[in-house]
């Protein structure tokens, strides 16, 4: 089920009133059942996988807490890793691996008789696998006590607002909130609903409109100017799409008094690539940092090793997105950029604070970061690695006329794309100038009602004619 569908509207109208009257175990049971319905809406068989992962990690967590034997704890952790990553590997990567072996075998003239399996990727498997893995790893590290409540754990794994596309939560932050019903204040409700409406606006107006033009260019023949515009447009589309989803998830949870972690902090105003990763898909980047980068040695083993660790982590982060070479290259490129930045920061002793206010001299850093990220988006959006390289190659080799005329888009469409991007970038600047202060402080019911009514009307009047699925659903 997707948030921007009529079915979800009906779903929400059933979930929340019942939620309001229930307490304790029945409440958790209700939310688990509804989360499973939400998840299994398109394909009920997916639920089995979710349930399997839940049962496995709940039991491993309990068993791990009952023993001090380091070897046994390690073995239990290995079971969790094998179980979860094994399922992820089979469902997400087996086809890719077999196809790659086939390709290599064909290149060297050897017949490889294995056909790639025809498996449908379960939605959100990458997200909940990481979420449930963090539970067992945290218990293994002694950072978390396992829960005794199976329903609370099942809800932690399947909590519908963030099940399909994050934010990837940690048990240390979310689990205890799910064990007991959280009181909801007026502020929670107003903020939550506003966040949901804002997230929907980002998705169905801004992201989906940009998506139409991006598809027009990337799915057809286009000039360099088209591709340049479409690549920028895609950068904003994916930001609006994914952060819109996160806004809706955070807002829905907030309506239930539950706090989810922020996933985006206006990333396109980052002064360097390191800052970008502290502002973009934060729940994934921190997961990779805590469970991959630090265990690899982090920055404790010299600058060369640090840079190498960054590249490895980003490469794997790229593969987390999809079983395709283009995602690996996407991660590798950003990893290299991060590695280079780390070395630069070490040599020139550059330090920055995420909360520092912007200065004019930061413009250069923001520009370079933006262009670095833009190149990566070509790989992310293009149909294949070859096509991505073709587009990038054309950027540097094709004649100038290709830079001065539009082919796939007309002037009006190009103007609309630019306007949508300027608005989004303007919101970045506005928010940074606000320096974290809450923008919407109105609590007068008439003003709140008018604001919500305005957002609903805005969506109704200007939603894109083609409703698209959230981009990150494919991961």
């Amino acid at each position: 089920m997707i948030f921007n569908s009529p079915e979800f509207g009906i779903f929400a109208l059933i979930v929340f009133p019942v939620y309001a009257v229930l307490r304790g175990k029945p409440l958790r049971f209700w939310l688990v059942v509804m989360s499973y319905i939400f998840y299994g809406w398109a394909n009920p068989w997916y639920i089995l996988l979710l349930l399997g992962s839940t049962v496995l990690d709940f039991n491993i967590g309990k068993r791990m807490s009952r023993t001090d034997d380091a070897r046994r704890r390690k073995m239990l952790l290995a079971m969790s890793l094998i179980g979860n990553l094994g399922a992820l590997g089979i469902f997400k990567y087996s086809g890719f691996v077999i196809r790659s072996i086939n390709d290599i075998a064909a290149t060297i003239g050897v017949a490889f008789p294995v056909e790639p399996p025809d498996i449908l990727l379960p939605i959100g498997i990458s997200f909940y696998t990481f979420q449930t893995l963090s539970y067992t790893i945290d218990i293994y590290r002694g950072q978390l006590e396992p829960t005794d409540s199976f329903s609370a754990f099942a809800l932690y794994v399947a909590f519908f607002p963030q099940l399909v596309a994050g934010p990837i939560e940690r048990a240390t932050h979310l689990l205890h909130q799910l064990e007991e019903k959280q009181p909801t204040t007026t502020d929670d409700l107003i903020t939550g609903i506003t966040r949901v409406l804002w997230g929907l606006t980002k998705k169905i107006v801004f992201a989906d409109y940009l998506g139409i033009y991006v598809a027009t260019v990337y799915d057809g023949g286009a000039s360099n100017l088209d591709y340049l515009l479409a690549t920028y447009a895609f950068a904003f589309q994916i930001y609006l799409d994914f952060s819109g989803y996160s806004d809706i998830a955070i807002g829905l949870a907030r309506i239930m008094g539950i706090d989810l972690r922020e996933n985006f902090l206006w990333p396109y105003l980052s002064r360097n690539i390191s800052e970008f990763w502290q502002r973009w898909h934060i729940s994934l980047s921190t997961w990779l940092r805590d469970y991959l980068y630090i265990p690899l040695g982090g920055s404790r083993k010299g600058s060369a090793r640090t840079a190498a660790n960054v590249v490895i982590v980003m490469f794997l982060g790229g593969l987390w997105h999809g079983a395709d070479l283009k995602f690996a290259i996407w991660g590798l490129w950003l990893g290299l950029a991060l590695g280079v930045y780390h070395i630069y920061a070490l040599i020139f002793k550059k330090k920055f604070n995420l909360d520092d206010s912007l200065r004019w001299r930061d413009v250069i850093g923001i520009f370079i970061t933006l262009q670095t990220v833009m190149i990566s988006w070509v790989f992310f959006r293009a149909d294949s690695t070859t096509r991505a390289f073709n587009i990038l190659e054309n950027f540097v080799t094709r004649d100038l006329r290709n830079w001065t005329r539009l082919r796939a888009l007309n002037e009006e469409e190009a103007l609309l794309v630019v306007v949508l991007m300027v608005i989004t970038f303007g919101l970045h600047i506005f928010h940074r100038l606000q320096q974290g202060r809450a923008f919407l402080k109105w609590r007068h019911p008439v003003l709140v009602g008018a604001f919500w009514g305005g957002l609903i009307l805005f969506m109704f009047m200007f939603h894109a004619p083609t409703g698209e699925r959230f981009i990150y659903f494919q991961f």
Partner: protein
Amino acid sequence: MAVQTLSPETHIKSTQSWGRYVIILVAIVGFVMAAEGLAAMIYQHIEFATSYDAPRNPNFRRGWVEYTRPPATREPNERRIILISNSQGFLRERPEDEFVYASQLEMLLNQQADGSNYQVLNWSIPGGNAPEYILLAARAAAHDPDMILLVTYSQDFVEDLHPIAFYISDANRLGYLSDVRRYLPAEFIRQYAINDPLAWLEAHTYLGNMRNRLEIPQNDSWTWEAREKRDRPRGLHRFKEWIEQAEREMQFLNDTLLAALPDTPIVIVQTPINDLAFTQDSLNQAEQFIPRLQAHFESNPNVTILNASDIIAPETFYPDGVHFRPEGHRQFAEWLLPVVNNTLETISR
């Protein structure tokens, strides 16, 4: 504007005031109603051309609800012919309305000076396809036409109304009008998903109508230059798929015509085709078209099926190979004249 800052007390988890939420709800409803009222005021002051006063839809692929509005009255001597067709009936390549074959046919009919006032309503949708024709056929009932002229060819029975592309016509809005919907087969409504609550709301509110007006047209939707010749002949969807889809759509069309226009003569004409612009597959399809139509409409005594596929010479087509030049429109109008006369004469008798 007064801005209330968040007081520390509001952070305290407390029982909510239901009165506050009622006010919020009332404010939302009030805001939306006010906007709807404003949209109504604006919308009612917009003058929309209808097919009675414009020889083709001036909004190109949009505004089909407004363009096909039935008139309030009907003159006693009026003979009303509704033409439903595709881009060939639209002649997008030329700005002048008089070249369109619908206009030329109307002129030829009125030149007969037989005391009748002929109206040829041109409901040609550029890129139109069978589902849109079905919706237009259902819409035609409200106009009480003397005759329906459906000029079409095999390729119109291929494309889906769904998924609705950005540039597709808004004819699907017709499906939400009660005087159209009642004639549509239930299976057609289901297959083309003409049951979207949001689309229903868009079709029945002034805000929705205003949104439709605001929709930005797709690129090259309204240019006047003949397009360049295609790099390769027009390929078509796989033959088997075409047959399955075409059979379904022909059945929907017949069911709709029987329900909406049980006593109106309907002439289905296979459109002029330029053989040179088509692949062999496409030509095979075109050859199958009339026999399949005949098989489907056998049960409908009002339907006559004619073939005009070879009445226009290849050089009379534009370089795109699909649309014919003004002289082709004239030839086609002259070809249609006796067809229309004979049909109308049959009714008079």
